[in-house]
């Protein structure tokens, strides 16, 4: 199944406009450091990043749907594959791995081995295990899925910048908002 999505991901990626990755990484870095200056409290920075991501996600989903041509997913397993193989590919140019499904298939971990946001970044000791540098991604996933009637909770469980092996986001499906689904999609 995931091969099929990888292929779609490649195709969509080849079609979308690209920008310089370094500019992107540096801009994001400037944004995070400015937030740290403004808020001082690191927990607040994590929350703000997540909120910014959410605002991006609710818009980005439309572009994703329009340009990938993906239809409605049958189950959350398919959703996970689509996010990791098409969504990440389309917007970040990398794919993510899925692991650690729970029994009900409502919770999985997204492992991002090659996160473009953290190129060049070295967290100072006092921020390690406190700042989730790429927390914006959690917000993007939450915002995007909310627009297709899935309420999820995303949290960083591992961060490569805090001396852990890779970046890992836990995604938990809390509920499917079926009463908000557009007609014809029950």
């Amino acid at each position: 199944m995931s091969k099929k999505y990888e292929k779609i991901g490649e195709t969509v990626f080849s079609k979308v406009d690209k920008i310089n990755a370094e500019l992107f990484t540096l801009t994001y870095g400037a944004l995070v450091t400015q937030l740290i200056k403004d808020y001082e409290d690191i927990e607040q920075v994590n929350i703000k990043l997540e909120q910014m991501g959410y605002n991006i996600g609710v818009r980005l989903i439309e572009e994703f749907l329009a340009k990938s041509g993906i239809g409605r997913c049958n189950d959350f397993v398919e959703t996970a594959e689509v996010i990791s193989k098409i969504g990440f590919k389309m917007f970040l140019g990398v794919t993510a791995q899925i692991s650690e499904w729970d029994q009900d298939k409502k919770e999985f971990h997204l492992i991002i081995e090659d996160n473009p946001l953290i190129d060049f970044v070295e967290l100072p000791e006092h921020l390690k295990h406190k700042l989730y540098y790429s927390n914006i991604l959690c917000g993007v996933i939450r915002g995007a899925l909310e627009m297709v009637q899935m309420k999820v909770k995303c949290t960083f469980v591992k961060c490569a910048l805090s001396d852990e092996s890779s970046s890992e986001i836990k995604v938990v499906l809390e509920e499917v908002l079926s009463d908000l689904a557009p007609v014809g999609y029950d």
Partner: protein
Amino acid sequence: MIITSCRNINVDDRDENLAFAVNVKVMAIYSLYILNKAGTLIFQNDYVGSVEKLSHNAYISLGSMFHGLHAIASNLSPTGSSSGIETIETEAFKLQCFQTHTGMKFYTISDPNHPNLDEILHNIYELYTDYVLKNPFYELEMSIRCDLFDDKLNRLLKGTTAD
């Protein structure tokens, strides 16, 4: 690429208005409506000069009414869920609707013989994602007032190429 295929329409038995429209190389899409997921009209524009203008409120109520009809149509289905209204055809025009997975609706009023509305609606959706949603000052769910979006739509629907 879309535009060329639309110039092939058969103009023999069109009424005067349309013959006029084709003469001036206007594509036979009369109007475009965009509804947000709550069914509120967030965009409406006419692309052929001969279309009679209505009041602003009339467009809003037409949009909401279509939203309601769409929901009713979907509930009428005898065999479980249906997609709601996709096309309405009459002698004088055809309405074609495209609903996104997020619940927005894009619909065009066009010539009944227009050949590839599906593709055009999809292109309009892509323009919306590029030129409306990426404008940081556009507030979601609100009326669309984006000049770039208007320009691109004019190019797509009127077939004018400015460059």
